[in-house]
């Protein structure tokens, strides 16, 4: 813990890491066939956004710097709710079609 707190990172480095994480997340979300893998990409994107919030809260001049942390906590809450509903949807669709392949789910096609 103390060792990690001694590490000095700059704002630009963290923001670039966040951008790379977001790009990996959007690649995974767009290219995977399995619905669970798509959800993993979305979680990665939300994590990248959280990382950016925390970095700005740490480094940027602000009257209330802790608000970035509060917003990150809200993002985590919403991500948990979204993951629960999406995985329940995946299981429900699986019961109906015996697949969660995104290319084969065409229930809404007319």
């Amino acid at each position, binding site marked *: 813990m103390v060792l990690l707190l001694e590490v000095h990172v700059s704002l630009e480095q963290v923001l670039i890491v966040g*951008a790379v994480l977001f790009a990996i997340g*959007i690649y995974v979300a767009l290219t995977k*066939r399995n619905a669970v893998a798509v959800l993993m990409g979305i979680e990665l994107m939300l994590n990248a956004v*959280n990382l950016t919030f925390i970095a700005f809260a740490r480094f940027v001049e602000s009257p209330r710097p802790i608000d970035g942390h509060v917003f990150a906590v809200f993002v985590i809450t919403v991500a948990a709710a979204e993951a*629960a509903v999406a995985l329940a949807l995946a299981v429900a669709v*699986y019961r109906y079609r015996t697949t969660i392949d*995104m290319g084969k789910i065409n229930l809404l096609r007319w």
Partner: protein
Amino acid sequence: MIIVARNLLHAVLFLILSFVGIAGLFITLSADFVAVVQVLIYAGAIAVLMIFAVMLTPASDRGNTGNLLQLPALVLGGLIIAGATYIVIETDWREASRGPFDTTAQAIGEALLSPFVLPFEIASVLLVVALVGAIVLVRED
């Protein structure tokens, strides 16, 4: 590693690894409370949910295969990295000269209960709705 893992379960395990790594990054940014919440909720709850979802869909493809969008998605990801890096380097961020935070849990608690009471309550309602919705979706009847 999430991209190239052959087995979907291995991909989930690598996702947990990256969540823990991001929690470490939070600690280096002196966000101890958010780091603990990250480990608890992401690496704990969401990872278990995902493993459950993979296990509950046994006849589906475990292969973690891609679809036809791979090249456009790669181009899009590269564009995002390049554009965001350019913006990050070119912008003047008005960096504060204050040091790292001491402890953040108390300040987050006070902020949640004084200026952010309404979003806090809405988040709790959202959690209840998600809970009931998930139960209704997977109920057998």
